[in-house]
């Protein structure tokens, strides 16, 4: 599987959409910081840590994470996840690689790992640029936790790293769904759009009245699981739930994608 994984990464490195996603992820926090710095007043007040935005650069990546969870990062993820199998169909290269010494399972696993790597890279790029841009603009100061206590900047940075990890789970689940679509539809554009629609639908469902009972199990909700890390004491419940809810979404999507990939007739591709 190692060789397949490495080549999937090399293939991503040779494609424009990879850079589009990564550079887009890195530019968003810069644009955000510039916009906030140019604006007078305070806020946004209605989102977690929004009020503290101008007090410390450490708040910037948290707020950017919140905004990007709606469609930004799902789009960045879908860009590659929706394409990684469908592009083989488009280039008719599946027959080329499936007639070498690699089983279909290996090829699929390589694509899963490459997609995950790209997704995490985009997320880490966004958060890292967010911290740097935020600190340059608003300084390296203590963070105020969601419970109102002061958190030292060093601890805040650690919490940001953990939060990024927790935030990655639902993003990876969306990537898994994108891979399923990419495998099943064999069409890159349809898969990218479909993955984005799926992510938006999850948000929409959560916003509808009467969905309170299923809300904790929707994917969109898991994007706020990291809030638990910023409470004093730490609230582990949403984090634990996020872990298994996302794992189930990802496992179902990957299992379905794997079966489709394993059994598909490679015709004209």
């Amino acid at each position, binding site marked *: 599987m190692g*060789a*397949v994984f*490495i*080549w999937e990464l*090399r*293939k991503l490195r*040779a*494609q424009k959409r990879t850079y589009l996603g990564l550079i887009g992820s890195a530019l968003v926090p810069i644009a955000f910081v510039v916009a906030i710095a140019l604006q007078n007043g305070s806020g946004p007040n209605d989102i977690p840590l929004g009020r503290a935005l101008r007090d410390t650069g450490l708040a910037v990546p948290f707020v950017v994470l919140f905004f990007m969870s709606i469609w930004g990062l799902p789009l960045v993820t879908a860009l590659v996840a929706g394409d990684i199998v469908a592009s083989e169909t488009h*280039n*008719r*290269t*599946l*027959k*080329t*690689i*499936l*007639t*070498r*010494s*690699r*089983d*279909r399972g290996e090829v699929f696993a390589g694509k899963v790992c490459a997609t995950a790597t790209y997704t995490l890279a985009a997320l880490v790029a966004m958060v890292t640029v967010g911290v740097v841009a935020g600190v340059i603009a608003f300084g390296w100061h203590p963070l105020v936790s969601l419970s109102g206590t002061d958190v030292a900047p060093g601890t805040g940075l650690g919490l940001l790293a953990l939060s990024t990890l927790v935030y990655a789970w639902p993003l990876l689940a969306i990537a898994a769904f994108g891979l399923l679509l990419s495998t099943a539809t064999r069409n890159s554009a349809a898969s990218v759009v479909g993955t984005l629609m799926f992510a938006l639908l999850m948000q929409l469902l959560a916003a509808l009245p009467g969905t309170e009972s299923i809300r904790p199990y929707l994917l969109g909700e898991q994007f706020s699981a990291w809030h638990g890390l910023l409470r004093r004491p730490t609230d582990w419940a949403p984090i634990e739930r996020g872990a298994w809810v996302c794992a189930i979404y990802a496992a179902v999507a990957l299992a379905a994608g794997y079966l489709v990939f394993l*059994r598909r*007739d*490679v*015709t*004209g591709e």
Partner: protein
Amino acid sequence: MTDAPPVVARGLVKRYGDLVAVDHVDLTVERGDVFGYLGPNGAGKTTSLRMLLGLIRPSDGRAELFGRDPLVEGARALDGVAGFVEGPAFYPYLSARRNLELLADYDDGPRSRIDEVLELAELRDRAGDRVGGYSHGMKQRLGIAASLLRAPRLLLLDEPTTGLDPAGMRDMRELVRRLAREGITILLSSHLLYEVEELCNRVAIVRRGHVVYEGSLQALKASAASGYALRAVDVDTARRVAHSVAGIGDVAVVEGELRFTAGEDAVAQLTVALGRAGVGFTALLPRSASLEDLFLDLTEGEPAAPLVQEVA
């Protein structure tokens, strides 16, 4: 390694809904064969090759390469096997060399052969260019290079000369001949009779998914009823004489010639009878059906009629 033949297909069927693309195909390719899989476009040749390579699942029947079924053994069944179906395809955004490096790594094979196969395909000068900018002929040659990278014992080539210019076709055929001389067994699909006639020692002729003939082209020619044309001074008398000789059939006068079918003995009898009857003749010519006629008969004739007996 077993002694199993390079290719064995038994009762291979592929249905797409009501359409039967491949209809109970039996094929055996022996070691050292240059085997032609001949038929018009849309006869199911590519679909058959895809099943051999494990790219699509047969609806029924089985296929084995050197005794291994790709459906059961996966990629391991393709050990020693290489080739392409429906034109080779590569990553357009990578160079030819990068594409070959990828494929070598997918095989856990050495990259050291890459220069050698690029040389063979006459692509060494352009190896650093992205494949997206390659002409059809260059991609076709790269397809051969990619196949040879595996040092195959069996090569499956689907219409390798399609879309090439005359010089490209000649070079491709020359390459196939050369590979065959080196001992590689080759299964080559084509819709071009003369190509198969030129390159292959055995053929399977396929029509609407069904193999209508398998054997050598020589045997196919020999199996067709051989006809004769006789130019006589008195054609009408000659015709009466011909009717009286046993073993002479399908007697007809066409364009002033007497035409008939017969075995060699009957023809000899006829010449004696003509002499006795005082009918002088100026020419007696065997008229064997051209291979093209036979091919067209086999691939375009009515499906109900058994056109030619299969020659094993």
